[in-house]
Every structure is written in C-alpha cells, then in structure tokens.
C-alpha cells in the first residue's frame, strides 16, 4: 500500500514541478504589451482564417478504437503470460492444453478483427 501512496505523491510531484515552473516563468518573464499581432496564432506570417478547432478526419477515431481493442487485449493477456510457466508446468487447476487452446481462440478472434479492419481500408492513411 505504501508503494501506491508514494506513486500518488509522484503524480502530484510531476504536476507541481510543471506548475511551479509555469508560475516562475509568469513572474520572472519579460513582459511586452499584448498587441493583436503578438497574440495572433502562428501561421507562417499569414492572417489566421477562422477558428482552429476545425473538423478533422474520422480516421483518427478509428485508430483510437482499434487501439482500445488491442490495448485491452494486452491487458487481458498479462495475467496469463505472467503465469505461463506455472500453467505449462501443470501447477494450476486448468490443464495446459485447455489454456493453449483458449489462447489460440482468443488471439484468432483479435487477428480476424485486425484482418477485417485491414480489408475495410481503415488502416489506410490518406
């Protein structure tokens, strides 16, 4: 438990250091008048047209969805892989053959998902 408390301290520490640096920058930093040209978003010398929060390609969402699937898959595989030696030595209630077949089925479903996405052209970046 104490390990997790230390980790949470580190969580705040990273944020604290960044916040302290930002405040230092705000206090020490050189100041100039906030003119319109200075505050304008950078765009290679041109005047910015419209808002920057434009519509963007749906492809980014599709990659995010695929990422979710595979990341969760990896999380599901962690307990199995961490005990792989034990399972293969037969030290667990499930016999090793059953585990191997389960794993093959699990991976096959995922790989077929990847193959489907590939076939559908989701993985093609335009």
């Amino acid at each position: 438990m104490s390990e997790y408390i230390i980790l949470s301290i580190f969580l705040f520490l990273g944020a604290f250091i960044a916040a302290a640096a930002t405040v230092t920058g705000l206090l020490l930093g050189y100041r100039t008048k906030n003119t319109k040209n200075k505050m304008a978003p950078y765009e290679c010398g041109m005047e910015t047209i419209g808002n920057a929060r434009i519509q963007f390609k749906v492809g980014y969402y599709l990659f995010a969805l695929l990422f979710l699937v595979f990341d969760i898959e990896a999380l599901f595989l962690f307990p199995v892989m961490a005990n792989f030696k034990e399972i293969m030595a037969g030290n667990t209630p499930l016999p090793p053959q059953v585990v191997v077949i389960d794993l093959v089925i699990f991976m096959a479903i995922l790989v077929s998902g990847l193959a489907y996405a590939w076939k559908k052209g989701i993985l093609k970046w335009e």
Partner: protein
Amino acid sequence: MFVPSITHPVGDFIREWVPKLSAYLPEQLQSQTLDSIAAFLINALLCIIAVCAVNIGSAPILIYMERKVCAHVQCRLGPMRLGWHGTLQTIADVIKMLFKEVYSPSGADKLMFYVAPLIVLIAPFIIAALIPFDHNLIVADIDMGIPMIIAVNGFGVLGILLGGWSSNNKYSLLGALRSGAQMISYEISFAMILLFVVMISGSTSLMDIAQAQDGTVLDWFIFKIPVLGFIAFILFFISSTAEMNRAPFDIAEAEQELTGGYHTEYNGTPFAMFYLAEYIALVTNSALAATCFLGGFHAPCIGVAAIDGVLQMVPGVVWLFAKIYFMIWCYMMVRWTFVRPRVDQLMDFEWKFLLPVNLVLLAAGAVWMIFVG
C-alpha cells in the same frame, strides 16, 4: 504496517532516529503509528529528492549530449564557447528560458493551455519511480509494474492532445492529432513486447524481471531466448522511439512540415516542461530497455570467476546507468542518422508490419517456452 521501499544509509539513520526524537513529543502524539508515518514521510521525501535529482539533473546533461552527438554526426563541433567544450551552454539556456515571456495566444483555452504541460510531465515521473536501480533500491516496488507503465504512458497522450487543442492553432491541432494517433498505435506494439518480457520472466513486477536476469550475460533476456530475444529488443527500440515522438518518428513535430507540432504556441517555461518531459521519457525508456532486456542492475558477468568478482564490486546503480547511457546514445545515433518516413508509411509500418510481427513473436516465444524453457 510500514515497509521501507528504499534502503540506504541515510534512510536507515533517519528511520532509527525518528522514533527516538519523537520521545520528546507530547504524550498523546507518541504512538507507534506516528513513528511509522514520520518514517514513511521521510522515506518518501528521500525517494522524491533522489528521483528528482536523477530526472531533472539528467535533462541538461542529455541536451548537451544530444547537441554534441548531433554535431559530431554532422562533422561540426557543437557548443564550444561557454565553459569547457560548451558544458555550461545548457545552463545558460535554462536561465534564458526562465526569463522568456509566458503568454497564451488569443482564442486559446487558457486553463487547458497551462494544464497540458502538467499532465505531460506526470507520466515520466511515475515511470521513473517504478524503475529498480539496485537490489534494494526502488522507490515503489509494485506487483503491477509493467501494466502500470503502459497505463501511465497512455496518460501522457492526453496532455499532448490537450496542449494541441487548446492552442487555437491549426498546426498545433494537426500535430497533436498526429502525435496522439502515432503514440497510441505504437503503444500497442510497446505493450506486446512487454508481454513477451513478462512471459519469459513470469512476473509483471519490474524488480522480479531484473532479478530474473541474474547470472551471466547469457541470462539477460536479449540473449536468453536465441534470436527471438534480440528481435524483441529491436522491436522495443523501434516502438519506444515512436512512443517518445523522437526522430526518425517525429512526424508530429516535423519542423519542415508542421512548424513544431503540438507545442507550436508554447513559449517560456511551459515549453521547457514539454522539453523536460521528452528528455525524462528518454531516460525512463532507456531504463526500461535496460531493465527488460539488458539485465537491469546486474553486472555483465561472463562466467569467469576472477573477472566476475571484479565486475560485481561495482554497484548496481553504476551498471544500470552505464546501460541507460548506452541506450540513450543508441537513440541519439538513430535520431541523427535515419531519415524521417511519411505519416502514412509510419502508420502502415505499425499496423501492417510491427503488430503482426509482434503477434508472431509472442506465439514463437510461447512455443519456445513450452518446448525448451
């Protein structure tokens, strides 16, 4: 129950003296819990100081190193004026950075603009706390070390997306989206390689993984499984390079195309925080590579008792840092010698090559474990 997570002479000294000093406190405060809380706080403080020193201290060194490596690859000298061979150059840069004006562009989401560097800096700090530096020297020895690293890595993406979106700049938004897409894509192969490591070592705790590589050089995971271990190491190298958004995979901040990626609009210290996070991530990723493949804090023993005895006299921290700096040097050489791929090539490489290869590698590793290991 208090379990000391870091043991060193100073910590032992304080742990011994805090209960004695607390005898002078008022009676109602003299409880066992108070002592343990005090000891815990002091222990935590020591951990924090140590990790901060390693993290923040290594950033200037790495920036100097990067400049020198880059310069010598390109047949230049690099920084030479300030101090001996330009050693004081990065310190001067830090001071310059502190006195730069901090402001957000018009139309920016101010809160999100300033919160983004905070979130980006959290991830490498947590990972640094999980790395075992020596047999007893680890800040937080948790069982879920590897899944924690994957989770925290995913957290850093949020900061980048937030920074790009809040800047009200089209380059920033595009850069952030590309960075996000790239980082989450390569996160998968990153996780898969770590799965391979977990399978060989039989534990998700980083300490156990480092301990499992005790022995000679041939017990390191890069050599333990013939060929497969080396392939896994190369794949880890590629995916962690992409994960850190470093060249040659720095599509998102390609200066020639997108001016600077998600931090185009940042200046002064918030920009420095993105930079710092990048370099701490370089240290932690190298430390992870060293721990998972290069034997962690173990000396490179070769099986000859006389030589091994001498090698083992060197503390583990020194070996770990030697390995970390070797890995950092590799990352830098790759950065300055390889050309940058296009964004579609990058995504194709991950989804159509790296991921299938990873799955095959995992299967091959499982077969090796069943029949040989």
